[in-house]
């Protein structure tokens, strides 16, 4: 079987395998889930190792294609098509690692374990499927497949008195985003006249015969806002902190870490290469909106008294940098955005994993109730501190590499926005993260936490794996950037030939006055 198909089919098959296991055999259910995600992770790492040596077909490696539905009579052909290039390789590998970590940390679940693990595995399968698919239909299909378990898991195993509200909020927001994107995707399909949903064929077609500017201006915002809602683009972000604060640990890890990146991936993989003129028109707006993420959500995070809401808001703020990198449309900036997508995935999973463990042990996430936990919980405390530091953009972690590249790359296109972003990243991010470290880990410890025990091995393994991944990315960034760069270069080049004039990153002087306008305006 194709390696890529195996990566997401193993969890899905495991979900089916769990169905006949009696619900009283809890360890059996858990074992199957752990084995499946472990195998998936090993396959993901194998993919990473074998990537350089593999031969590319149409720019994609491990390419596999077969017909799923074929009815030329009514103009309907959908193929099952998978493949990876530099852009989704890292996401897939990161997804398998986070999936394994999330499954390890699912030990906290104490009721309906069977349903939980089935849904978890379906969610994992959907996430990984979405990132390996090269057919727009399946891209959407797998994304939705992963979303439904997310909603149900928050509803059943979520915590807090407001979890119904949170469930419905996240369901309605994300469904709205997905449906807007779907309308845009179907219109892309119809515009091409190719009668195929194949991503490679569609991209090739639109690069050879660019779509009319009017259509681009209409379809691009559909995709931008549809995908944007999925990634909590300001001002459509309010579902994210609420949803994550109420979600079970594994769901928050998987959604914030991996599934959320789908919208960014779609923007980069579908919207920009196929509609360069629409991108020129709208990316300036995106750059402005991402400032809302970086600045506004950063300030909101500063105000939070609840650790989970703080992490949720800071996660939304970090996403702003990825948007900025994509909006810059420069080789360095977009490469940085891809790196940051991966780094943020590890980081979000790490922080949500640790805070979820704290919540389960202490029954609260209110920052004021904590203090001095580092002494009582040396392991969890240390890693929480590491995660917070990585969140501030401390060198040595993947986030630093990504943010640095993004800011470097977007300076040319949006100097003012970038300036504000740097300021808020360093100052605001530093303030809330350091304050959280002080209030949670240092100072006087409350008597009631004397009985807390540090994490057991099931919690230690995933935390260590995620932290090591972050460190590896930060210390050897070329492991990733060398793989990402050629494919980003293709996308960036295609936007330039597609009728759009963008200032080259090397143009030395540029009036600051124009900085807020879309790149096209420099023409």
């Amino acid at each position, binding site marked *: 079987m194709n390696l890529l198909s195996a990566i997401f089919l193993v969890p899905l098959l495991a979900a089916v395998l769990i169905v006949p296991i009696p*619900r009283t055999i809890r360890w059996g259910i858990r074992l199957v889930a752990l084995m499946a995600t472990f195998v998936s992770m090993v396959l993901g790492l194998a993919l990473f190792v074998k990537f350089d040596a593999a031969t590319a077909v149409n720019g994609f490696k491990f390419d596999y294609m077969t017909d*799923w*539905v*074929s*009815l*030329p*009579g*009514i*103009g*309907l052909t959908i193929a099952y098509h998978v493949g990876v290039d530099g852009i989704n390789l890292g996401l897939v590998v990161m997804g398998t690692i986070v999936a394994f970590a999330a499954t390890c940390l699912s030990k906290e679940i104490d009721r*309906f374990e069977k*349903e939980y693990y089935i849904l978890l595995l379906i969610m994992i399968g959907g996430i990984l499927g979405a990132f390996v698919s090269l057919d727009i*239909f399946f891209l*959407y*299909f*797998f994304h*939705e*497949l992963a*979303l*439904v378990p997310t*909603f*149900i898991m928050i*509803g*059943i195993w979520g915590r807090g008195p407001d979890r*119904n509200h949170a*469930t*419905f909020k996240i*369901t*309605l927001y994300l*469904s*709205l985003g997905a*449906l*807007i994107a*779907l*309308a845009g995707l*179907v*219109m892309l*399909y*119809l515009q091409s006249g190719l*009668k195929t949903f194949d991503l490679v064929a569609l991209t090739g077609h639109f690069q050879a015969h660019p779509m009319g500017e009017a259509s681009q201006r209409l379809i691009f915002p559909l995709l931008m806002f549809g995908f944007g809602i999925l990634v909590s683009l300001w001002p459509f972000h309010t579902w994210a902190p609420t949803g994550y604060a109420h979600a079970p640990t594994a769901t928050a890890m998987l959604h914030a870490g991996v599934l959320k990146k789908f919208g960014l991936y779609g923007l980069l993989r579908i919207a920009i290469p196929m509609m360069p003129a629409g991108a020129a028109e709208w990316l300036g707006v995106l750059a402005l909106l991402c400032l809302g993420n970086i600045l506004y959500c950063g300030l909101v995070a500063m105000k939070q008294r609840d650790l989970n809401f703080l992490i949720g808001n800071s996660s939304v703020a970090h996403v702003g940098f990825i948007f900025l990198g994509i909006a810059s449309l420069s080789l360095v900036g977009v490469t940085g955005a891809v790196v940051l997508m991966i780094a943020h995935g590890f980081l979000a999973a790490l922080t949500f994993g640790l805070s979820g463990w704290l919540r389960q042990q202490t029954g609260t996430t209110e920052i004021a109730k904590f203090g001095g936990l580092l002494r009582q919980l040396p392991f969890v405390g240390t890693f929480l501190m590491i995660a917070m530091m990585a969140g501030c953009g401390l060198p040595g972690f993947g986030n630093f590499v990504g943010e640095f590249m993004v800011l470097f790359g977007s300076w040319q296109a949006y100097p003012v926005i970038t300036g504000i972003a740097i300021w808020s990243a360093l100052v605001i991010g530093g303030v809330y993260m350091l304050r959280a470290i002080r209030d949670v880990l240092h100072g006087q410890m409350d008597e009631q936490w004397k009985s807390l025990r540090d994490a057991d091995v099931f919690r230690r393994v995933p935390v260590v794996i995620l932290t090591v991944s972050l460190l590896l990315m930060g210390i050897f960034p070329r492991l990733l950037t060398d793989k990402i760069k050629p494919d980003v270069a293709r996308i960036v080049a295609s936007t330039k030939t597609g009728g759009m004039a963008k200032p080259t990153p090397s143009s030395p002087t540029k009036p600051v006055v124009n900085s807020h306008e879309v790149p096209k305006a420099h023409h």
Partner: protein
Amino acid sequence: MNAGLLLLEYAVIGLALLVVALDLFCHDSDRRRQIGLVASGCLAAICAYSFLIHPEGSAFGGAYVMDPLALWFKRFFLLTGVIVMVVSTEYAKQFETGVSEYYVLQLFALTGMLFAASANHFMLLFVALELMTVTFYVLVGYMRQRVSSLEAGVKYLVLAAMSSAFLIYGIALVYGVSGTMDFTQLGNRLQADHDLTGNVVLRLGMLLLFLGLAFKLAAFPVQIWAPDVYEGAPTPTTAFLAAGSKAVGVVLLLRLMGQAAYEFALGSEKLLMIVAGLTILYGSLCALPQRNLKRMLGYSSIASAGYLLMGFAAMSASGSVAILYYMAGYLFSVLGAFAVVAVVANRAGAADVGALAGLSRRNPLMAATLTMAMVSLAGIPPLAGFFGKFLIFKSVLEQGVNYGAYYYLVGVAIFGVIVSLYYYFNVIRAVYWSKDSADLTPIEISSPLRYTLWACIGGMLWLGLYPQVVLKSAAAATALLKLPSLN
């Protein structure tokens, strides 16, 4: 005359007579319920047989046709009949008397549906519809001891009789102008004589015909009956109405629009779009505050009629394929849902959403079936409903290039889908994490019903994951319609 073409109808009528005869030898109601199992088994055999045969031809001077479209819907109706019959057997414990008559009436309604699938003549259309509708009068009001059932029966009687009046009046007007009742001839005359298409009387007749059939679909503005009747009728009857009666409206509309009055239908896409949009809005918005499951499903069935009408409004080959596919997915989803509701409501005495509390502990299979049915109805992958809605949306967007208003229709439909997520997820929530679950006694269900639930789950998954087979059959079934294809 090709009497052999009517084999399926004969078989179902014969089965109905067999049930009547068997009833003579049964003296207690337990035995009578077993008749239901026998009937389900025989019907399943007939249904299986229908998948093996491929007859073609016509009978009664062209009034009755057996073509791929008819056969597709006959299989659909038989499958619906089998599932409904199994659910009825489980439900029959509620009836004090007339257990086997309930089966017999269902078989007669099924016969009406089978004939309607083949109707190529207004006379047969009307007779088949009346056979079905009159039987439903009785089936809806079957629980004589319950006021709600009687009320539903009376409402259905009055409103359905009115829709029949619309229908027969429309037929009369169309016949008066065109001089024929035969669909094929009508199609030829309309094609030959373009003045005829513009004739006001003919238009009025067609409009009345459309209203009469829209009643079966439960489309706006003749949808008022659906929630009340769905709520009051015995649940198996509701299931039969939801899947069977709706499909009858679909097949007759397809035949009328695609074959008999194609020239006429071409000009009516605006009307269809407006009706579709309003139906979706009415169904989705009214379903929001519902607490009664059957009522909620009634409104959701109205919304589904709206999605089906979108496919009609597209007026294309891909639209009609989408309609058929949507119906196939709808069959498994809605029957799965009603099968669960039938048992749960039976236990709780009311079909309130609250009655679902703790279902996940009382019977995990039923909880899973209901959840999947809701997910499928909401149109979420990987289940059948997703692909059906996807096809419908795609077929409508395809037309948007020609006429911009189609985009607005899709906008309305997206709004409807979002709203529908709320009430469908409400059900899932009640099943899994509702707090007030007083009664946690396990619910035992008979093994035939268990297999049926598995079949519904299997059907939803199959249609969602491997659409090729059913899509091909749907494309073959609609190939004879004169709708424009994209190529």
